[in-house]
């Protein structure tokens, strides 16, 4: 019995970590080693792939572009979702429950459905190949999610807290920024995390709505063949670096997410 208690988590973690290990493993190999032989760890250890990424603008600008539109998107999503979620959690109005559900159904459509309309619209109004174009298109998926998460957290705050603040003499803006926002800080963290993650991993819209100037890392990374032939080592290094921001964000919000689960919203 005692053996099994460490065995099962170990097996679980090994399975989970396997693809990530293989990615990291490949990123320290040369393309020749990857294609030529099966090795469990790099025989000719090299950081050449990483050096290329950090020195070649076509590579590192991919990260800059991605981080830019992801950040813009997260900010827009939260700015829009906060008042919306407040309204849903605090007021009853005609059709509020239907509207709330309809907002969520936006997430049911695959991004591919919206690729063409977005592409045509943005081309027509001159937004094509800009950061804001990708950020806005991702809002379609992230705002409903953020509203839904935030509404859960806000409904966990009794409305008597609002009233107590008003009785104390707080105006609505004072209450909202000094008391309410800190009270749901965990929810904002969780919502930001999900917006960030969706926007960071979303490939199709990001690829469709950009060409040269703001090409995201996901697009750069998925062109498997370049003029230099297969560059598997380089692509692996890019993939490894793509995981890093997500891992960071997860590390910082892990406690909040647990709280979100406790509230039954995630």
């Amino acid at each position, binding site marked *: 019995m005692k053996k099994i208690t460490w065995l099962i988590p170990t097996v679980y973690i090994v399975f989970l970590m396997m693809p990530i290990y293989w990615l990291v493993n490949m990123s320290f190999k040369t393309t020749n080693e990857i294609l030529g032989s099966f090795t469990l760890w790099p025989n000719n250890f090299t950081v050449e792939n990483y050096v290329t990424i950090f020195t070649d603008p076509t590579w590192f600008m991919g990260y800059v572009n991605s981080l830019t539109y992801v950040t813009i998107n997260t900010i827009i999503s939260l700015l829009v979702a906060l008042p919306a979620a407040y309204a849903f959690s605090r007021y009853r109005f005609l059709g509020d429950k239907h509207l709330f559900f309809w907002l969520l159904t936006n997430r049911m459509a695959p991004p591919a459905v919206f690729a063409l309309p977005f592409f045509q619209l943005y081309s027509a109004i001159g937004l094509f190949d800009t950061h804001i174009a990708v950020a806005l298109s991702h809002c379609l998926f992230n705002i409903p999610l953020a509203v839904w998460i935030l509404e859960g957290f806000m409904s966990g705050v009794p409305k008597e807290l609002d009233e*107590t*603040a*008003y*009785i104390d003499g707080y105006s609505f803006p004072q209450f909202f920024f000094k008391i309410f926002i800190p009270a749901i800080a965990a929810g904002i963290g969780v919502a930001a995390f999900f917006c960030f993650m969706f926007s960071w991993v979303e490939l199709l819209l990001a690829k469709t709505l950009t060409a040269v100037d703001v090409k995201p890392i996901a697009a750069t990374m998925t062109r498997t063949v370049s003029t230099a032939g297969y560059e598997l080592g380089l692509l692996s290094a890019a993939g490894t670096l793509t995981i890093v921001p997500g891992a960071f964000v997860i590390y910082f919000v892990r406690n909040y997410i647990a709280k979100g689960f406790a509230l039954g919203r995630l």
Partner: protein
Amino acid sequence: MSLEFHELSKQVYDEVHIAHTDLSLNPGVFNVLLGPTLSGKTSLMRLMAGLDQPSTGSVWFKGQNVTGIAVQRRNLAMVYQQFINFPNMSVFENIASPLRIQKLSESQLRPRVEKGAELLKLTPYMHRKPNELSGGQQQRTALARALVKGADLVLLDEPLVNLDYKLREELREELPRLFADTGATVVYATTEPHEALLMGGYTATMREGRVTQYGPTHEVFRKPHDLATAKAFSDPPLNILNLKRTAQGFEGEQGLSLKLPPFQNVPVDEYILGFRPHHLQIQGNAKDILELSGEVTVTEITGSESFIHLKWAEHDWVAHTQGVMHLPPGEKLELYVSASNCLLFDDQEQLVPAQV
């Protein structure tokens, strides 16, 4: 008069929360709002605070019509049944919050907050966040905030309900004293009649969205104007017996005879007799007007006293007696009600004054 309602009513969709109510509370005293759950205590308080707007009628405070005036601009404080504090602020900041908004300087604010904290025994916890406090301490923080604000009107909506018994008893004693010095008009909502009696001051009884009576607590208790007030002010519930007037005197249900002299000046033939549980005696007395034999259903014993639940005809009654009584269910028990302890109501459920 400090706080007045004129023809106040509140309706939410089809539901009447407050029916036409006229009331004026005495200034600077401790007022208890007594009524069972759903009787409209909280609704009335929210109207007092201006958190809700009345459907009709007006609210006056210190001679001014404050209906429709924003909560922020009224000088009041409120403590809820739930423990409501600002989660991101320390106890000190929580208590100081209304004073900060009034833009008091640190040197003016600090002594007031510290005094309030001391009165509510919060001094050792000033730097803690509300979620690091026990329930009692959290509610003390909320009470301290209401206390230091120096509000003209303090609304306490069943603030002690969620506390354990010991704490509740302790705070119940302190509360009227704490607010007595502030000169504020305090309104304290509760469902428990004995709490109203302990708090003293004035009591307004509520039933089904109406204030049935307002006056000094003991007066309301001893001379309820109507059946609703008597019911609201009785725990365990008031025992009730229907009476008919006959040529010989009064007759209860099932031909029960009462030694109540007939009186002719009131032109009503049907009456309701009410008597409180501790007036339903198990020992006879010369002044008794009623003797009957009830059947025991349950006996609750709380150390030094017993609550005997009885059945008589269609009625469920409770007799509250001193001492421990072991009575098996089904046992017949002789019961007596004395004349001075009866409340007689007419068919409109109004008290018939001094009939005996």
